[in-house]
């Protein structure tokens, strides 16, 4: 008898555990709706007290869901958006609205995979679970802006007049095929050539930006100077990958034509040939960008003369807080280099179906159009902001200087660069094609393929595996 009871108990326990998956889901949904209810109730009481929220959000949803791949935009909101209060790592508050951060790293496409699933489920999601705002990068912006999953910024109350001081290219990136602007950005990312002043003095006799620029004003001069640097025991750049963005931004053709056929611009072939020459002559190494080996040049022992990058690289990535780094001692200088380019940048898009349109619009307006806030961002974070008037004022301001660059004011250079950037060539396939092209050509540059044609075959294979709708 006892055995029977035990058997019954054990088997019910087992069956129950199998079924419990459904049970726990049901209870968790009731759980979240309960918390949403209480937070809404709490919100109403605090509403009269806090006058910080600039927009009237009382008619809107109480949860603002933001998708991002790193902490950058969050820290910008915390520091510069009036009325934003930090609650913990993944939540914040604006007035009575709870801000929820859904942060997924970029690696292995994880960010876009998650974002895609959330956007595709947007219609059926509960109001408080819907994505309200998400961030994109230029390499894949078209994938989102050229669909109905993003809202035109004019629908959110951001007018053309609000955006009149923004750099043209930042709007081109998020303009869809019908000419409607679907997003906005607070930063511009014109790039410069960042060089080691000590090495410049030793090899070229001067660390003055104007003098150094003369040695790097085009790719021929660049290669000649690379030879001089090699003789003195230095690499001109850390890796062949460093120059890729410069050549790529100056390509005349988009990656994919109107028939979904992959096309490779001449300038990219020039990059392959020039890089092969750089590597074979021993002017630079073949490290992967962002690898530990690549970043060794941030320190004097690395013996690397220069990096190509925009403002965020100088401020964010070059180990300026680490003692002994070149950046820490203000040992870098900035010049325009052989050609202008841009690198990176983050755009804010509003997701269709948002229940916080007013607040999203206000965030866009404050963060990307308000000159006061944008000036603050420059002064506090050394970012290059997307506002021509502010940047030009600071470019001519003698008191503004960048410590990493040994007190140089690089803004004039950035301003000139930002005006020249042309972003008409974006396609929805850029990100994957960029990666596959660099990976296949990297193998040729490192000597693993005997010809560019072989590497091109590999590129086509990788690209069509990734994007089945493309041909070559």
């Amino acid at each position, binding site marked *: 008898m006892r055995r029977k009871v035990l058997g019954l108990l054990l088997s019910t326990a087992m069956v129950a555990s199998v079924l419990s998956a459904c049970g726990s889901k049901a209870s968790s949904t009731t759980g979240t709706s309960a918390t949403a209810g209480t937070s809404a109730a709490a919100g109403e009481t605090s509403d009269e007290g806090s006058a910080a929220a600039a927009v009237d959000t009382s008619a809107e949803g109480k949860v603002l869901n933001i998708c991002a791949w790193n902490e950058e935009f969050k820290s910008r909101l915390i520091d510069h958006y009036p009325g934003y209060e930090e609650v913990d790592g993944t939540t914040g508050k604006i007035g009575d609205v709870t801000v929820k951060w859904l942060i997924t790293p970029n690696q292995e496409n994880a960010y876009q995979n998650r974002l895609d699933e959330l956007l595709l489920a947007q219609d059926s999601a509960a109001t408080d679970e819907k994505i309200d705002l998400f961030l994109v990068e230029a390499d894949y912006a078209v994938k989102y802006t050229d669909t109905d999953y993003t809202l035109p910024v004019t629908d959110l109350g951001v007018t053309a007049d609000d955006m009149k001081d923004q750099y043209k290219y930042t709007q081109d990136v998020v303009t869809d095929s019908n000419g409607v602007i679907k997003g906005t950005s607070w930063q511009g990312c014109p790039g410069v050539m960042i060089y080691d002043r000590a090495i410049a003095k030793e090899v070229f006799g001067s660390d003055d930006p104007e003098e150094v620029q003369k040695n790097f004003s085009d790719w021929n001069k660049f290669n000649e100077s690379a030879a001089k640097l090699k003789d003195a025991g230095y690499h001109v750049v850390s890796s062949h990958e460093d120059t890729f963005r410069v050549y790529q931004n100056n390509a005349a053709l988009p990656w994919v034509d109107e028939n979904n056929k992959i096309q490779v611009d001449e300038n990219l072939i020039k990059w392959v040939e020039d890089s092969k020459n750089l590597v074979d002559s021993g002017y630079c190494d073949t490290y992967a960008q962002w690898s*530990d080996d690549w970043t*060794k040049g941030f320190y004097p022992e690395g013996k690397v003369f220069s990096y190509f990058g925009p403002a965020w690289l100088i401020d964010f990535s070059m180990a300026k807080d680490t003692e002994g780094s070149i950046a820490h001692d203000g040992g870098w200088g900035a010049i325009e280099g052989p050609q202008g380019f841009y690198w990176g940048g983050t755009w804010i898009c509003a997701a269709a179906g948002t229940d916080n349109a007013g607040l999203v619009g206000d965030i866009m307006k404050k963060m990307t159009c308000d000159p006061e806030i944008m000036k603050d961002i420059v002064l506090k974070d050394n970012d290059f902001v997307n506002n021509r008037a502010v940047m030009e004022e600071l470019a001519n301001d003698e008191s503004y200087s960048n410590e990493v660059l040994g007190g140089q004011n690089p803004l004039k250079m950035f301003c000139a660069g930002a005006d020249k950037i042309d972003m008409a060539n974006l396609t929805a396939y850029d990100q994957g094609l960029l990666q596959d092209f660099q990976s296949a050509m990297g193998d040729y540059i490192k000597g693993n393929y005997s010809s560019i044609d072989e590497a091109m075959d590999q590129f086509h294979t990788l690209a069509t*595996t990734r994007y089945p709708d493309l041909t070559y």
Partner: protein
Amino acid sequence: MTKKTSSVSRCDRWGYIFLIPFFSVYTIFSFIPLVSTIYNSFFENYRSGLKQIGPNFVGLENYVKLLSAPEIWKYLGNTLIMWIGGFIPQIVVALLLAYWFSDPSLRLKGQRFFKTVIYMPNLIMASAFSMLFFALFADAGPVNQILLSLHIISEPFKFMNSVAASRILIMLMNFLMWFGNTTILLLAGMLGIDSSLYEAAEVDGANATQIFFRITMPILRPIFIYVLITSLIGGLQMYDVPQILTNGKGTPAGSTITVIMNLNQYLTSKNFGMGGALSVFMFIVTGILSLVVFRINSAKE
């Protein structure tokens, strides 16, 4: 009497109830996915950006596309080379260790300690292990620095840029991770052999080599085949080690791309049609190779 039979049938019912968890888990997580993979392989079904293409029925087109391209055969070759290169040292070392551990005449001290130690690498996640090797063998990593300071090489050797070196690193990792596991399995088989057989052989004047090949190996064969086939299946599904070591690129020149890494490439565009076809292809290849291995090993009987 009647009471007894009814209690037996009631016991049967308990048996069925206890089987429910296995069958429900198997159906949900194995059987349904298996059938839907085969089903999906006949459709054109992928996502272009946020736009869903298909599913459109295309018959065997995915298979034709997959098998007519040279890549899949190259990737299958890569996978087999890296599996065999890891498996041969693994089985040799495992047999040797298991033989030593199971031989009472050697009276090895600290057996328990060594059994634990050789199993250790398997406890580390493959991805962590792979990251570790990635850092160790980087262009300016510790291994290169040691070789430089010992004056064995004059400039850093780029392990990740050499087909042989990067494949050998993957083989080495697979060997290190799995030889302990194989040793334990073979050891269990060897300990199950009746020691009177060994004694009889010794009395008859057989030497150690003869005992190993005439007594240990024949009796060990079922376990040996099991080890070989499970390792083959695991080897064909090799993914995490090369994926992490080469940052998903299978460099240099695609020489370390395994079949499952190729599957992962298809899945970036949610290409369930081609992914399904590739999975079914692997299913068939694994089945055929397992049969071949099984036949070869049992044919000698």
